């Protein structure tokens, strides 16, 4: 049973097996040519695997978009220390819900991707760090791991290739911050989930002080296809400098919300109108978050001609992010949207560094008061100012993630802030529905 009907506009590579009966079981995975990419990779040299990944133009799907092949090549393969493969399955970015489907419908695709990553850097152990709220996924994953061990796709001398690999699942405890890679590693090691000072980066000093590859679930899931069909084939699906497809989570005031696998470079308006079936109740588009709440918000005008890829979003001073698209219609109160976003970040700030800890809490209080009609004209500038004082000065990107959307909302929707002044009630209070961020 799928959560949403597939769209004919999709290019289904990672999600090719979504909706098939028993798609999570190893038998159906093997029947669909599963693990063949691993066997192919086991005969390749580690450098060749990394070259293939580089050729695919695959970029990290967690939000930062760092080229995956390059990241893998930073791991010192000659280090005497053990190396680790760590999977970031702490999918917590508001609006993002793709990794859970990848793990729910096709866990063996993830395992295969991890194994190939292991081959590329001579790692023999891996951890899947799953967000605590995805408890039901742990059962699915543990079952998949057990099957893989049983059928000889994990453990010692996998399928006679001489390659050993142990894979474990580990649950988070409900902290958004643990999706930040170094905080994830701290948490994985059993410590408080706060980020580490970088450099050194995890590729050199990662889990348990050892070289580590750390990628998002979707990134690993793309790897089997890359090895199977070749890096170039995957790259050709997307646009230059950003290969392949991206699972896009369409949420908000849209007729057909859901997760759709679309090639990179897919036009935004086509995404809303054709894939998503347009805005609910025939309303007009007001604002658009391209990839999770951390991205600067786009106005309807800015969506004209925009495509879902790194460069197009960067040229609009936003980010492709994690693929969590939030569509907001004309009835949305942008002050409330900013407040809702800030409430999330204030709640999730780990408290480590001053600007994020104090700034997010300040903004939450300020926006709450402002939305209640108790704001002053100077508060409008203050919201932007406080955000800018956080921006670029925090320990980890969480502060930026809180500041960027707030700055963009204040700049682009200033009039709505003015409309809340002088004790006036929220002009959108009649529209009961809220943005689902």
């Amino acid at each position, binding site marked *: 049973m799928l959560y949403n009907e597939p769209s004919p506009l999709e290019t289904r590579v990672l999600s090719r097996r979504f909706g098939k009966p028993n798609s999570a079981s190893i038998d159906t995975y093997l029947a669909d040519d599963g693990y063949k990419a691993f066997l192919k990779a086991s005969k390749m040299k580690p450098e060749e695997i990394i070259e293939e990944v580089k050729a695919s133009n695959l970029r990290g799907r967690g939000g930062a978009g760092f080229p995956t092949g390059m990241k893998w090549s930073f791991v010192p393969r000659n280090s005497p220390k053990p190396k680790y493969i760590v999977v970031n399955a702490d999918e917590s970015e508001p609006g993002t819900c793709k990794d859970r489907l990848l793990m729910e419908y096709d866990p063996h695709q993830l395992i295969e991707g991890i194994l190939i990553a292991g081959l590329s850097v001579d790692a023999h152990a891996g951890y899947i760090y799953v967000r605590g709220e995805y408890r039901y996924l742990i059962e699915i994953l543990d079952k998949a791991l057990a099957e893989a061990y049983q059928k000889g796709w994990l453990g010692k001398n996998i399928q006679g290739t001489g390659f050993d690999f142990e894979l474990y699942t580990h649950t988070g405890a409900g*902290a958004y*911050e643990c999706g930040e890679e170094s905080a994830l590693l701290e948490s994985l090691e059993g410590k*408080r989930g706060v980020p580490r*000072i970088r450099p050194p980066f995890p590729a050199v000093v990662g889990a348990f002080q050892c070289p580590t590859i750390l990628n998002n679930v979707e990134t690993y899931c793309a790897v089997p296809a890359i090895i199977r069909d070749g890096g170039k084939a995957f790259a050709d699906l997307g646009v230059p400098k950003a290969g392949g497809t991206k699972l896009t989570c369409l949420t908000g005031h849209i007729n057909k919300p859901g997760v759709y696998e679309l090639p990179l470079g897919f036009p935004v308006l086509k995404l809303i109108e054709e894939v998503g079936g347009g805005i609910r109740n025939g309303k007009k588009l007001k604002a658009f978050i391209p990839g999770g709440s951390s991205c600067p918000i786009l106005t309807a005008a800015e969506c004209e001609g925009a495509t879902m890829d790194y460069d197009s979003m960067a040229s609009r001073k936003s980010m492709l992010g994690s693929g969590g698209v939030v569509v907001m219609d004309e009835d949305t109160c942008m002050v409330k949207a900013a407040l809702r976003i800030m409430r999330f970040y*204030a*709640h*999730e*700030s*780990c*408290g*480590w*560094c*001053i*600007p994020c*800890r*104090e*700034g*997010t*809490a*300040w903004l939450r*209080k*300020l926006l709450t*008061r402002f939305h209640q009609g108790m704001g002053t004209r100077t508060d409008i500038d*203050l919201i932007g*100012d406080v955000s800018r*004082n956080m921006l*670029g*000065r*925090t*320990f980890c990107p969480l502060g930026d993630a809180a500041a960027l959307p707030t700055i963009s909302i204040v700049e682009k929707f200033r009039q709505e802030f003015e409309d809340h002044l002088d004790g006036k009630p929220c002009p959108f209070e009649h529209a009961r529905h809220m943005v689902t961020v």
Partner: protein
Amino acid sequence: MADPVKLTIDGREIHAAPGTLVIDAAKQNGIEVPAFCYYEGLTLQAACRMCLVEIEKTPKLQTACTVPVAEGMVVRTETPQVATARKYMLEFLLTNHPLDCPVCDKGGECELQDMTFRYGVGESRFTEEKVHTPEKQFSPVVFFDAPRCILCYRCVRVCDEGLGVKALGVINRGVVSEIAPNHGDHLECDECGACIDICPVGALTSGAYRYQTRPWEMTHVGTICTHCADGCKTTLGTRNDRILRGNNRDRSGVNGEFLCIKGRYGFDFYDHPERLQAPLLRVNGKLEEVSWAQALNAVAQKFNQTLADGGTFGVIGSNHTSNEENFYLQKFAREVLRTNHIDHHRTGDVVTLLDALSGKEGKLATVADLYERKAFLVLGADLALEHPLLSYQIRANYRHHQAHIYVVTPGAVREDHYSTVSLRGRDYASLRDKLKAESELVVLFDDSYKGDDVRKLVEFGESLGIPVKYIALVDYSNSRGAVDMGVAPELLPGYKPSGQPGMHYGEMRDANLGALWVVGANPLKNGAQRKAGFLVVQDMFLTETAQQADVVLPAASAYEKNGTVTNATGEVQRLKRGINTMGAKPDLEIMGFIAREMGAAAALGPWTPDAVFEQIRKNVRGYQVPLPVLMTGGAAQTMPVNGRIPVESRPDLVHSDHNGLFASGTLGRYSKVLNSVMESRLRR
């Protein structure tokens, strides 16, 4: 050492060792980069974001506390961008700060105040409700006021890394993150107060000091802690002849900023209600308060009479009075009372160690060696409890230089956590091969190694073929000085044989002496009855011995006098008078007055500490230490002998009291703070 790196900070070309952090390179060249969480010697946090600076070719501001210097790097610390970042970082910090400076203990010496004054904005734009949580008490001495906390994690780090205790952590997250004990609602720790000391703001405050004074009202007197033999420098904050706190923020002395609970809070015995403030004379079988003149006269008369009658004198000195007092006392005993019956409670076999090392130079380790040398062999002692400074130094050495630590002790000790080898028992000889592979070694042994054990140990050490240094661990602030000064029946100052050894400590206690003079000791503490015909006691309290005395003379504590003391590692340091307690006199002065009353003062010379120290410098080998070092609060190591000590070794007289962190003999019994805390229930 690698070639220095050349970089530019604020337009100045500077050189720094590779690996130096930008913040340190700047500081070394007189450029201040403000920071709260950066703390030399502790792990990096980069949490306070105050040290953000501009580095050319990096788009964002960088934390100077995490970036190491690089060749050709161009750093700017005073640009408008940096100034703005600092200004608003302070604005953030003050948003939830209660701004209760007028009633805050830290007011006047608060880093947050200073930073705000220098770098902050004049007014706040924060008009929301502040986060408030009520104040908590973590232990009898540690209070925590969360709203004042800026979460720099210094306390968490110093407890974990500096002390090896890990009593503090962080709970909650975001703006309600809070420092909290790791074990429920209270601290299970050494109660050393390092967390309070290191706190840049008034979040952690001391139960002993809080709400007593404003910092600027105090006089600060750097002196030496009187409790254990490690010889920590403590800076007493005094006001109106009261000690209000002890700390060592200026990091002078052998201990840097380290102090244990005794050094930081254990000074309060001076103010105990039972403190003697007038001489006592036994009249009709009862001790009655009399004037100093009466008391001194009674002592002098009796001493002169005993001399005239040809009676025997016994003198028991102390292991916590000053070198000057010990020197003067033994001179008094030998030249005026004409007796060699003089001794003190010996707590480590220093005599055998020095004898075994005769003819060798540079064999005694200093406190600094413990931080610098590469390997350590700890025998018998539980350093963390009995010698907190030495333990701290070795721990810091392990953290910063990965020193190798070999532990051979009867039970589990804190050093086990980072030792290379930990053995239970006494079989250090089995470590021979491992120790031979080290490049150098420092051996620390307690009183369970004495006499022939010490000789064997030195033989073992010298056979390893590497440079080895030794420390004979002793108790109390001047155990080492007491032997050096010849407060022993068989030894004169500087370990010269006395010729005719007199009675030792126990013998004097049990002998029918004509007169027994006890200075700062308590020989009758175990319920023994006095045997001497006449008993004079100089002490701060009416101890078991003083209760049986004929005359009790109220003595000043170490915080109430000048002089010098010698610590376990043989380093001489200067005591400086911090306060006066009405009625009590320094032991040296009391002795001088007795000599004067007896008409014997001329033979002994002047009884001011400086004059007696000059005599010590002339007469005791190794004490020719440079005076400027002492006068400026420094420490100078002494090697008081370097040849055979031709006396019968008396290891049978050596026994340590093994005082833990919260005990210190008589002084500890009268300290309110030491009696209020409980030994940690944590396993080592």
